[in-house]
Each structure stands twice: as structure tokens, then as C-alpha cells.
């Protein structure tokens, strides 16, 4: 199973104002990123990992932390046979 965490960290870094986000930390609880960023994040994940997020995928629990996003991406890639 691929580890995508560094790629995910990379997209978040510009928004974190130097804050050292832990991999299991709630991204949106930091107070550094507002809710309008969430669509941008999901679109980036789709593009970067060549997956489509729809319906049940669009649950905050899949995108709450770097680890959660990594698990979600891996699940989608496995389901797609990548």
C-alpha cells in the first residue's frame, strides 16, 4: 500500500503558516484553514491521485487528517485495482 502522506502534506503546507501539522491532527481544528478550503482540498486529492470522490466518499471523516486522507486514497486505489 503506497504512502501518500508526503504529497498530502505538500498541498497543505502553504496554508498552515509554518504550523507543524501532525499526521493524525484534525486539519480544520487548527483554526488556520477555513471551511471554504475543503473543496479545493478534495479536488486536489482527486487530481493528484487520479480518483473520483462522490456520494458517500464526501464525508469529512475521510479528509479530517493527513492519515485519514491517506487511508481514504489507498482504499479508493485498491478498489480501482491500481
Amino acid at each position, binding site marked *: 500500500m503506497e504512502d501518500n502522506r508526503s504529497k498530502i502534506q505538500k498541498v497543505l503546507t502553504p496554508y498552515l503558516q509554518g504550523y507543524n501539522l501532525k499526521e493524525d491532527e484534525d486539519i*480544520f481544528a487548527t*483554526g488556520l484553514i*477555513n*471551511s*471554504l478550503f*475543503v*473543496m*479545493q482540498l*478534495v479536488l486536489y486529492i482527486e487530481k493528484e491521485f487520479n480518483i473520483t*470522490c*462522490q*456520494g*458517500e466518499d*464526501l*464525508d*469529512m471523516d475521510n*479528509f479530517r487528517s493527513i492519515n485519514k486522507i491517506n487511508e481514504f486514497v489507498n482504499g479508493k486505489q485498491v478498489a480501482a485495482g491500481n
Partner: protein
Amino acid sequence: MPEYCIPLDSPVPKAYGEEIEKRIFFVSSEILDFNLKIEDEHIHQVELVTQNSIDVASFTEKINFVVTNDVLTQKIFAPKVVWNSQGKREYEKDLFQQLLEKGIANEAAEGQVSFGEPLISLMNLFDRKIVEIVKSLYNAQEYQYPTLIPTQVLDKCGYFSSFPHMLMVATRFHSDLDVYKEFAQEYREKQAVESSLLKYCQNTDYCLPPTMCYHTYHQLKGKTLEKQVITAKGKSFRFESRYHQSLERLWDFTIREIVFLGPKEYVLECRQKLMDATFKLVDELELDAFCEVANDPFFCRPDTAVKIFSQRMMELKYELRMFTEPDHTISVGSFNYHEQFFSDNFELKDSGKEEMFTGCAGFGLERLVYAFLCQYGLDRENWPESIRRETDEKSQ
């Protein structure tokens, strides 16, 4: 009536149908009725019935703009229900028709319904019950607001960029003797008030409020604030175009609103406590209802999809929906979290100069009564004992 078939630029997946249906009447008041033409799981055309002949090219452009800008940019979410009531009920058929026939309700004009008993007593009772909950949960302060709201307040609330299609303006004659004289002369000649009336009206300082909480942010603007809860009831106005229907979707309706201000955790806790207490009340009354994640009806914003996406994904808005028929529900209340949107625009800060967070809950009182009667009918004997006891028997 003229009928037209408007082609979409490209076939649209059927899943977007509901989002298109919510917007078509707002494209133009010329549209009297419409139907989405679906083949092979895709929408290919929108069939229109219009009041007058239309310029097909212009309507094709308008409809495709809305589909491209407001609909296709959205991601389709699976419904997310966070609570289901225990009540499962029979439904009264054609309740609104019954109300009209008995003279209890009267369609005064588009989206405007007048009504008498027992609806007045029920509306007052449901309002009292909500206020009792609010006062038992928090040390809430109650206010009575004017009906008019300054246009600049709606501007600060972002209403013109988010919901221009629902705006209702309260204007008046330009205050000048010549204007009155000219109007009086025209009226004497025509003996009718036509749309030319507007040429005499230059004042745009006031609007009709679409909700009560905007008054609260205006009231608190720039003040140093403690965490607090404020509640108010008042008439609210939203232009719903031809979507108005019975008592379930009005242009002119009554909201009981509760506003929460304070640190993020406080606001979210207030919202959750009110949701829990409301669910308890709905269950006590054995009403058939559920609560789900929802979004506001943003229209024609460049970032409509982003706003809707963030509301649904971050669960910023929940709606309490009650059944009026076995397969039809209406939203009777919403529970909202705004992050610091209103604090940014109204300088709502605490004593440490930290921006506050806000949230609100709003209950549509006509809708609550209507849904209750759809589920229990007009015969008092079938109502829950507590409702019978607390409403005047003469109200029947």
C-alpha cells in the same frame, strides 16, 4: 401558452435534476411551468411553458448559464441523516385545500396566506415551546426587531452576492413635492398604478428582512461582547418565485430565531443542545421527522459550488424536516454554524479583541403548524393531549 424545448449544451447526469429544478423559475418570471427531458439517465432538454413568447436564444443562454455555473460545478453528496424521529403517522390528505374550503386559510396573494384558528393558537404554542427550551438551556435575551432592515446590513451579510434572487426591497417615493405632484397627475389620468410607479421611487435604504439573525449582528456591531444567546421572532420575506406553495413555501412568513455568539466550542455546544432538545420535543409529540445535513440556496455566485460544498462537507447546516405526505418533507427548522463570517463583517469581538464565532437556529412557524396538521389533521380529538391542553378549545 407558448411551449419551448431548450437544449442543454451537453447531457447532464440525472442526479443533478433536483438542483436544476430548484433554479428554473428563478431564471425568468416568464416561465410558468417546466419539465426536464430525461433519456439514457441524462437530462438533454428543459421543456418550458411561458407566459408570453420568448427569445429562445436568450433563454437557452440563461438556462445553460445556471446549469453550468450553479449546478454542474457541484459535487453530488449522499444524503446524511443525523437523526430520525420515532413517530410514524398517517397523513391528512389535501390539508391545505381543507383549510381553504373551511375558510381557515385564504390565499391573499402570491406566496402570502392569511389564516385563523386553530393555526394561530398552534403557531403561538409552538413558538412558546421553542422559547421555553431556549430559556431553559441558556440565559437567552429576547428582542423585538423592526420589520424593515437597512440595505447596508444585508450587504454586510453577503446577501446580494449569495441570494440576489430572493431579495425583497421596501422602497418609497423620492421625497420631493414635484414627485408627488407628477405621480398624482399620472394616477388621475390612468386611474391605475403601473410598473411606472418605480420611476418615482428612488430610495433603496431599506429592505424586507429574509431572516431575524441579521438584525442581531447589526444590533451588536462593533461592541465588546460576552458569549451570549439572543432570540427574536419576526416576519421574514423571501421571493420564492413560482416555488411558493400552500403554507409550506411562502414569500412572507414568521421565523423564531436563536443566535449564539462566543468561542467556537460554546457556539457548537449551544447548537447541539438546541438540536437535542428540539428532537426530544418532536418525539414527545410523536411527529414524523428527521434531521439531515443541508445547504443554503446560493444562486449565481462565481463560487456557488464552493459554498455549498463547504456547508455540506463541514456540516455547517442541518435541517429538521417533517413529513407532510408519506413521500414529501418540508424543512421546518435549521441549525447553522457560520464560523467567523458575521464576526468579520460586523466586528463582533470579545473583551480580549478576539473575533467571536456565531451560529443560529431558525424555525419556520407556519411550516411547523402546517406539518403538524398534515400529520394530525384538524380534529382536536386526534391531537396529542399536551397540545389539546395548551391550546384554547375555542380555537377549533
